[in-house]
């Protein structure tokens, strides 16, 4: 019992209040800094004292050794200060980013974000030197949203790298990367990217307000931020687009959308979105007109198959057997002769088995990966059929609906579709086609009622807006003149004004 109390006591002792002002005596400042950052226990909090060459004053530099570039400190700060002559500090230090700080709150923030802080004896202002070097992955291929034709790079867990990937594709002085901070305990940097003379101010302010309104200790990454930003956290439908592709993000920026980046995620958020944002793939526009639209058509079919085919099968065979052609009917009947379960149960078994394989496939450690394929195929296919637990036709149905769901690459809408599938199957098992169509209508009405940052989910198709009509199918690239009207961009046309 007592250790708990003791522990509590000891933490409260070290939890000292932040000093209000910076002293101009270096020793006091050093003591305060050491206490603020628990110098004795905090292994990677480092400092170094030295005498500045040009004015012979004592100076101390503080930093977290784990998040700064040691060579840079050496080359651009210590060496010039120890050796060079000059008029003042900013002329001697060769680092590109130097700021003067005036209170401890700022100092804490800067040290936490990887800066080195320089105290000089007899000076109550403090210099913050940007030597941050957070470790991150290198840029790799987009793995979750792969394309055949198109750029292959993906965002990585570094804001600067991600920004660079976007700026590389969009050379526009109006492309703004506005920083915001979120979190009380751990302050995280959020970057809002938008094109200043395109973006709809109202939506931008709405996004900013929602970010400002977040009051929480910390938000680590955009995946969590997404859930703080959205309007309906319990909804089956996502209202924020999540992508790891810089080219996709840039395409949306060009249309006047807002992209949200954070330092810790290898993806970005795009707002506002419509159903079409989830339905489209960047490859649709990279492929030639016909090819791109063909792939859209297949994807649309996949949407239909994955939500509807199991449910339709249940509805028709349980309630409307007269609709099945006699050959198929007799084949299904024959294969079901030995199956002990009702048909809807059979379908649910297979659908759930497929979901299990899918979930396990994601969680399984990489070296075991190939095993899951074999086991999965065995369970789904031969074995279950031979054991008369399910009939062979169900394997086709489940495989078709499962396979189709992979064509919907966006992870959010993918979950929507997979959950919808189960709703539809249950509805179809209740009253057949009647219930299936009823539930579909309700589902569709709900979808149409959804709004993402004030934009209807099926716009610009319904409600209609002037746009490039990039909905089910896209126009030829030269005919895509307008930006999506549903977000009301400041400039509607994608052509220079004088060419009209």
């Amino acid at each position, binding site marked *: 019992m007592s250790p708990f109390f003791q522990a509590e006591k000891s933490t409260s002792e070290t939890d000292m209040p932040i000093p209000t002002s910076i002293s101009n005596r270096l020793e006091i400042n050093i003591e305060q800094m050491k206490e603020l950052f628990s110098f004795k226990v905090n292994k990677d909090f480092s400092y170094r004292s030295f005498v500045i060459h040009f004015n012979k004053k004592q100076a101390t530099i503080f930093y977290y050794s784990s998040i700064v570039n040691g060579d840079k400190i050496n080359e651009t700060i210590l060496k010039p200060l120890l050796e060079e002559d000059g008029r003042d500090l900013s002329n001697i230090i060769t680092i590109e980013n130097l700021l003067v700080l005036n209170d401890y709150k700022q100092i804490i923030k800067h040290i936490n974000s990887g800066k080195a802080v320089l105290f000089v004896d007899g000076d109550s202002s403090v210099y913050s030197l940007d030597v941050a070097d957070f470790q991150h992955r290198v840029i790799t291929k987009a793995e979750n949203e792969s394309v055949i034709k198109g750029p292959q790079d993906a965002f990585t867990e570094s804001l600067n790298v991600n920004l660079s990937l976007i700026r590389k594709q969009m050379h526009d002085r109006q492309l703004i990367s506005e920083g915001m901070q979120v979190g009380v305990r751990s302050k995280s940097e959020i970057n809002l990217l938008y094109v200043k003379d395109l973006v709809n101010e109202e939506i931008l302010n709405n996004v900013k307000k929602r970010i400002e309104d977040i009051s929480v200790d910390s938000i680590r990454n955009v995946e969590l931020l997404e859930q703080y930003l959205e309007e309906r956290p319990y909804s089956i439908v996502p209202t924020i687009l999540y992508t790891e592709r810089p080219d996709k993000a840039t395409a949306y920026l060009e249309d006047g959308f807002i992209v949200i980046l954070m330092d810790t995620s290898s993806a970005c958020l795009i707002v506002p979105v419509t159903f079409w944002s989830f339905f489209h793939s960047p490859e649709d526009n990279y492929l030639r007109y016909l090819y791109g639209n063909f792939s859209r058509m297949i994807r649309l079919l996949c949407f239909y198959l994955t939500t509807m085919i199991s449910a339709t099968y249940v509805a028709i065979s349980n309630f409307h057997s007269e609709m099945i052609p006699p050959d198929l009917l007799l084949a299904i*009947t024959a294969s079901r002769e030995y199956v002990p379960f009702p048909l809807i149960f059979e379908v649910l078994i297979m659908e759930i088995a497929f979901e299990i394989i899918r979930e396990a496939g994601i969680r399984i450690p990489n070296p075991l990966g190939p095993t899951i394929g074999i086991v999965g195929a065995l369970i789904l296919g031969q074995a279950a059929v031979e054991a008369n637990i399910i009939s062979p036709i169900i394997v086709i149905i489940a495989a078709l609906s499962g396979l189709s769901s992979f064509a919907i690459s966006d992870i959010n809408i993918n979950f929507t579709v997979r959950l919808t599938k189960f709703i539809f199957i249950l509805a179809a098992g209740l009253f057949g086609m009647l219930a299936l169509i009823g539930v579909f209508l309700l589902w569709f009405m709900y979808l149409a009622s959804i709004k993402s940052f004030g934009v209807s989910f099926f716009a610009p198709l319904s409600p209609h807006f002037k746009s490039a009509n990039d909905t089910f199918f896209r126009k030829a690239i030269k005919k895509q003149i307008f930006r999506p009207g549903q977000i009301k961009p400041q400039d509607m046309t994608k052509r220079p004004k004088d060419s009209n």
Partner: protein
Amino acid sequence: MRKKNIFLICIFIMVFPSGCNDRQELEQQSYVVAIGVDKAEEEDKYDFTYQIANPEVGSSSSQGGTNEPPSEIVTITGNDVLTATYTANAFVSKKITLDHTKVIIVSEELARDENFLRVLQAAARTPQIRRGVELIVSKEKAREFIQLNKPVTETRPHKYFLSILNRVTRSGLSPNSELHRFFQITEGDADLFLSTYASAIPSEEGEGNEDEYLAGQIPKLGGSPTQFMGAAVFKEGIMIDTLNGHETRLVNILDPTMDIENFITTFKDPIEPKFRVSIGYSQDKDPNISITYNKDKPSLIEVTVDFKAEVIAIPSLVDYSQNPDYQKRLINQIISELEEQTNKLIEKSQKEYGTDPFYWSLFVRKHFLDVKAYEKADWNKVIYPNAKIKVRYNLQNLEFGKMLNDTSLEEVRD
């Protein structure tokens, strides 16, 4: 809030089981493919014969072969087609479903009975029997027909009926005789309805050319005993006569509502009359029918049939392909033979039947303001029997297959 939840749960509890009421698992049903209707010995009772498909035969390869027969045939006496199915459940283990019935077979005996319409009416009323079911008249009892019908390769009955009916109507040997059409024409009370005529018992072999037979008369060896050939003629819901295959073909040619594709038939060789020339007849367009309605004097019906012909075989080896003169004579022969046979059929229908089997009443209706006026003018008693009918066959195009010259007999046998 809690009350609302409890209310919702109650609704769901009520809703869920009620769905099960309608739910019917596939394997708990027996699918009737063919229904046979005969007169029972008792007055106003009928023998219903159900041919029930066995789903395990031939439909799934993985389930292994069974020794069960492809179908189960049961006959039961009853009042109407649906009540009898429930009686039949005393010995058929699953619910008998008529959704997938392909044909209704009626014995000629019953078809010629004036009560025929009564029993068929019940079949039309039940939603289970589709209006697209084909009506077949069998020469023998329908029960015998179904029992004797043992297709050799298409052992599954539904497949057999589907393919054979498709084939006989396409080649024009039998008419398209959907139940819907039966009621349409019978209730229209103007034209004659033609039904497929079939028999599973070979009768005396008939004589004549390739299509001048009735079902059962075709001289043949081997194969299934069942024959579909010709048509049963229904006037006002009662069968009055039969047409042989050739006459049925002519009706199919002249009736724009029938979808005849093409067939091969023979015509007399105009140069060497003891041989016959085989001609592939094909018709792309519906015949053009124009009726000039005269109130006081006989109306004029003009029919133009555009067709194409392809010479298939010339056993006489006469050089029709190269000699324009011979060609002309061949064309004249084809047209005159067709016209002669057609006129004979029309005369028969005008004098013997009193109305037409071609469904031409459709084309006179536009001359009347309303149904009453049309019914008063009386197509089947006044207009048609007295009408002047001109049928003109118009050969658009004569082809000679892929060979121009036939083998020269003299050169071969020198």
